[in-house]
């Protein structure tokens, strides 16, 4: 059985924790996605994209309920990830688990959903 070859990332202010359940890859993001997180997040998502392709997962679930802030540079990593999967012709569904109380999530993720409605969905909790 294939296992995930991408590790968790934990910094003082930011965390990424991937888990693979059946054919769904869950990625929990926590902390603050500011300038300090932008570069590592971009590089992490490039690795994650390769894993999605290698494992042929059918869905990626981003749990951002504990991600209190995401600036435009970090958002760029999400967009590149989604565009990258679409560019490979993958029909992998992407779902965001969000917290309606966090303003950035409505503004940024709604635009993301509009951009790729057939791939991206938002589940408010």
């Amino acid at each position, binding site marked *: 059985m294939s296992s995930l070859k991408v590790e968790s990332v934990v910094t003082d202010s930011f965390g990424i924790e991937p888990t693979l359940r059946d054919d769904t890859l869950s990625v929990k993001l926590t902390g*603050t996605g*500011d*300038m300090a997180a932008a570069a590592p997040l971009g590089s992490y998502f490039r690795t994650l994209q390769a894993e999605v392709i290698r494992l042929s997962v059918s869905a990626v679930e981003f749990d951002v309920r504990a991600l*209190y*802030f995401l*600036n*435009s*540079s970090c*958002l*760029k990593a999400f*967009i*590149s990830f989604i*565009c990258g999967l679409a560019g490979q012709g993958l029909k992998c569904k992407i779902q965001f688990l969000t917290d309606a109380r966090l*303003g*950035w999530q409505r*503004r940024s993720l709604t*635009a993301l959903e*509009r*951009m790729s409605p057939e791939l991206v969905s938002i589940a408010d909790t």
Partner: protein
Amino acid sequence: MSTKRRTIALLMDYVGGDYQSEVRFGVERAAEAHDVNLLVAFGETLALPGATDAAQNSIYHLIGEETVDGIIVASATLCHHIGIEGMREFLRGYAPLPVFSIGMEIEGIPSLTVDNAFGIELAVGHMVDAHGRRRVAYIGGPANNEEARTRAEAYWGALAARAVPPDERLFAEGAFTIDSGRSAMRDLLARGGEPDAVVAANDKMALGAMELLKERGIRVPQDILVAGFDDAVIARFSKPSLTTVRQPMKRLGALAMDSMVRMLDGKDVQDVALLEVELTCRESCGCGVQASASLPPPGTTGRGGAALIAAQRGSLERALRRSVSIPTGSLDGWPGDLLSALEAELTGKEGRFLHALEALLDAAGRAGAILDHFQGAIAVLRERLHRPVEDGGDGVFQDALERLWHASRIVIGSASVRVEGERRLNVELASMYLSWSARSFSTCLSLPILKRVMASELPALGFSRVAVSLYDSTHGGHDPQQTTMKTLFLMEGGREVEPPPASFPARLLAPDGFLGGGERTTLIAIPVAFGDLEKFGVAVLNSGAHELVYDALRLQLGSAVKAAALHREMIRQVELRERLEQERIHQESVVAARIQTTLVPERLSVEGLELSALMKPAAAVGGDYYDVLATAEGGWLGIGDVAGHGLAAGLVMLMIQSMVSALTRRDPGASPARLISAINAAVYENVRGRLMRDEHATLLLLRYERGGRVTFAGAHDDIIVCRARTRRCVCIPSSGVWIGALPAIDAMTRDAEFVLEDGDVLVLYSDGVTEARDAHHEQFGLERLCAAIESAQSASVVAIRDRVLKEVEGWCPSPDDDITMVVARYRAPRQP
């Protein structure tokens, strides 16, 4: 009145090795006897002029009159490449210091060599005369080595003297190593000369030859006889044991020191002295016994044991002395003492002989003698004192003697085994400690770590006095006479001490006071170097550690200093690269800030709108955009933010600004949605297709009509309208998608509209305003922004803008994103 103790240097290529080890031992013991300091400096074999001089040899050029009073040079170990002329030049470089050469006869330099020619004559003669061999092959040493040349000439001479026809196929050359002995033997067999005996110019080559013969199934001594030269320790333990010319190497060293002391005392020494050699026959020539034990029997005597000894005492002493080689002169009277003890034993003082023998073995062991050779001494005594009953001997007396010889052989055997065991244990301990220290030295990535490792590892290796000093400049071609060093590590009495901070001339080898001192010392000076070119400094260490350690430590220290230098250079390069990268980013930010700020409209003038705007780039410029363009029917407002920072974001922002300006100029009444879609297609192509990057941007375009209608499209932060009628802010969300992320966004980009009424205040802003965070990471947020606008809504648009800015900056004094705002108050046309 006390005088300064003399210091003598011994220069050699290696401190281990059979020959070097024995010679050094002799020099060291004689130095103790003469109460002079000894400084052993070892590097490598000297290189030919013009060839790369090994960095290891830099140590030789640092030896001079500042540190020593005279120099003994083990020339035979240094001359392989440069020959006798090169050695002469090398030794003359030390003038006016007295110099003494070991192992090579050099004109104008007092020299001591063994009788190399006689040694080969003995070996070859033994093969021909004693064993009847006619096809005696020879493996010679390096052509430039004077001793090797003398030995080779003696081989031809020994054959000629016995009318054995010379055959070039039976002569091969080696390099005094086991491997070269194997190769030479392979050549000798391949040539078809069918040798029936082989004499090698040293033991190592002989052992190499025996290895190859064994591999080929050729038996020694049944099929071919083998002899070597030196009588190295290993010769006794090879299988079969090696017949060899015994070279008194320790004595060579001791006599060299004796001569040097005489020279310093102003006494005469021989220009060239020759030391005798002898043949030690073992199994490899088929003899299996020691030739030295055999001397012509003396005349018969009918008297008792003591009388037998007295009758031939002088002859017996000579025979005993020849049977055992004692390296230094400290035990010169041992044969007489042993015979006296035997006389006492034979006159009834039981146990005196064995007691004396044990004491002698103990002293001889300390002097470095091979204790096994005392078996030969017992053989001499047994042979000389044996009187068969049929020849008138006393049977009881002979039985007592036989028991004494038997007990003596057991004593000698035990002592020999004990000494060999101690040697083996010492080798094993040295190997183990070296293995441990190698691990520590291999992880030294800086000089402070190297110091810590030396402080912890060197005592275990047997060191208590150490000075490791490094050159102040490490360029390769420095003049040793001009170079200075600074001590990195200093150890006294087994403890690390603070080295003096000042530099000192490298030719002093160690900091002031280290080499001299009250007690007599023997110190070893080794180069701290890496490979043939990189010289780092000099280490001076006390003697007494196992000889394996010095050479290994030389390599470990050189490698550790090199690793530290490489690591330092790597860190420097990384820091330099980081500085350059930071500088590049800074320069990019400067350019990007200039692009961003110089492209904002100089004057804000749109009919019906009171306007103020602001763009304040952060340190890492964020790629914000705003524009205000007047048209005949009203005007266009635009605001956006390129995701990412730096020059690339600035360039994308420049593209957007140019396209918006061009498209609105060409079609002032165009649909904002159509413009956004067109701009998206162009930005997508430019950024992803041409710049090969992945920037995207928020962009909101608003087309304002003088009547108050505002049509907009795109994706950006909410539009805020502070209604004059209600005095409250309304947030109008945009409904599009980012530009630059997808090739076409026509389907998801729609126009929307709202209407401004007289006095309404329209505010556009970037996320640098709402996402500015305080010390607790709380964002300024949309609510605080609206509250600030509402509280200042009656003021001028400039005052509203400044009020918001003041509050944002109060919230977050050092924002990490650009802050951009456009504030517009609508004034409805006056009714006619």
